[in-house]
């Protein structure tokens, strides 16, 4: 049997399953198998849930080059695209993150204005108030408490609701549905139903904004719908994307980052004892690099043959760019496994790279700077209320973090 197998097939047959498991004792580090692959060479084959064997790209420089390469497509409908999960029955519309230019650029540019640096900076005092008020409530409430429910999730949810113009009173509804969407272990039917719920909800809101526009992001989209530049369904899709992306990721960075700091008390002390905005900003970049909570890799498909490190990725073959291990590439960051809030980590790829780099990153950065710069200063005795071994980690989601973080002070 072996004599007829060509080397490419043989490699695919040996491909390890992806995603890979983290080491039990190191919840902040990428899976050890990813490190091994990074050391072995620039490209590996991995096996996905559907039996397909896309390429895995593990090194920092290769990832940046490929994410900026026009021969690489983000279009989920192209054959060979490495999907995270089965497509829901009947399919759903997809937002611009799963499309290529010029369609991607057309849609993305409709929502970039509120994320410009000056606009985001203008929101900083409001975010500071949200954070301060939540800390007041935390201190007045039960002790110990779950930091995820009481703080990590409300901060970004309140902020994104204000920015979009979504009533925060509905947060249970959209948080429950977005939890289903980002969970890898639900059925396609469940995911489709949750997505449908959110689309219906945003479509309803869009109707209100079309009738009575105010000064928020959804009203801006509503005006474009009225002007015929955008369909109402496209607008609802964008609303869902921004709502989910706006709270899930930042919430996980807050809770997981706090836990990582608990495990590195010297680093936590740096934040507790400073009001130097440069140090706080640098600490946020380092936590983004070190934790890298989007751990399912960026997904792409080659549209032409591309050579990487002497090997050829053929047109139509899928690519997974594992950003978590790229951020720990010793070729880019010295002692990459050390959390060092003073290092210059700004070139990390936690937000991706290329045309699809995270749209909300200025907002995420500002929120994290306010949170990390405030929480430990205001509650200097903040500490975990349980052992690390008892904390439930989100191994099953497309965003990594903790389900719960009991804290005391």
């Amino acid at each position: 049997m072996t004599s007829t197998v060509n080397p490419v097939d043989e490699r695919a047959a040996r491909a390890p399953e992806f995603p890979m498991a983290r080491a039990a004792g190191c919840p902040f580090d990428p899976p050890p198998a990813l490190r091994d692959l990074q050391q072995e060479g620039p490209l590996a084959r991995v096996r996905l849930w559907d039996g397909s064997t896309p390429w895995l790209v593990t090194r920092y420089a290769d990832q940046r080059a490929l994410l900026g390469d026009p021969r690489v497509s983000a279009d989920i409908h192209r054959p060979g695209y490495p999907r995270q999960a089965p497509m829901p029955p009947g399919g759903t519309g997809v937002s611009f993150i799963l499309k290529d230019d010029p369609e991607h650029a057309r849609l993305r540019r409709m929502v970039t204005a509120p994320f410009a640096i000056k606009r985001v900076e203008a929101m900083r005092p409001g975010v500071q108030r949200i954070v301060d008020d939540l800390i007041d409530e935390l201190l007045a409430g039960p002790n110990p408490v779950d930091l995820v429910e009481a703080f990590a999730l409300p901060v970004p949810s309140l902020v994104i609701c204000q920015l979009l113009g979504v009533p925060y009173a509905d947060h249970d509804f959209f948080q429950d549905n977005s939890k289903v969407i980002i969970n890898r272990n639900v059925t396609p039917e469940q995911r489709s139903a949750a997505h449908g719920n959110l689309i219906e909800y945003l479509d309803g809101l869009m109707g209100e904004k079309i009738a009575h526009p105010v000064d928020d992001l959804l009203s801006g989209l509503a005006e474009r719908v009225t002007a015929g530049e955008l369909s109402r369904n496209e607008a609802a899709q964008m609303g869902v994307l921004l709502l989910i992306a706006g709270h899930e990721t930042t919430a996980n960075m807050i809770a997981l980052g706090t836990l990582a700091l608990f495990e590195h008390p010297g680093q936590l002390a740096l934040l507790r004892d400073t009001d130097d905005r440069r140090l706080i900003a640098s600490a946020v970049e380092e936590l983004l690099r070190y934790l890298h909570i989007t751990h399912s890799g960026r997904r792409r498909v080659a549209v032409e043959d591309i050579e990487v490190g002497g090997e050829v990725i053929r047109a139509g073959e899928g690519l997974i760019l594992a950003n978590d291990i790229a951020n720990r590439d010793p070729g880019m960051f010295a002692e990459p496994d050390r959390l060092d809030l003073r290092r210059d980590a700004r070139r990390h790829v936690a937000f991706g790279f290329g045309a699809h780099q995270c749209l909300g990153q200025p907002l995420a950065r500002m929120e994290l700077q306010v949170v990390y710069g405030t929480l430990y200063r205001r509650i200097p005795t903040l500490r975990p209320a349980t052992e690390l071994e008892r904390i439930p980690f989100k191994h099953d989601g497309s965003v990594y973090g903790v389900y719960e973080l009991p804290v005391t002070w």
Partner: protein
Amino acid sequence: MKVTVNQDKCVASGQCVVAAMEVFDQRDEDGIVVLPNAEPPAEQADDVRHAAAVCPALAIEVQD
């Protein structure tokens, strides 16, 4: 030092503004990069080079 930007490539990430606030700015309507000063003074050279390095769209070119 001479700087050029490609507005067609720019994805409005604002990373250049964070890196070199005196050199780069963003258009109000859509956050696309604008360049009020294409020949920044030498003391801003490091920040400008950093901006070019972090720009996700590779939209910034620097000539010494």
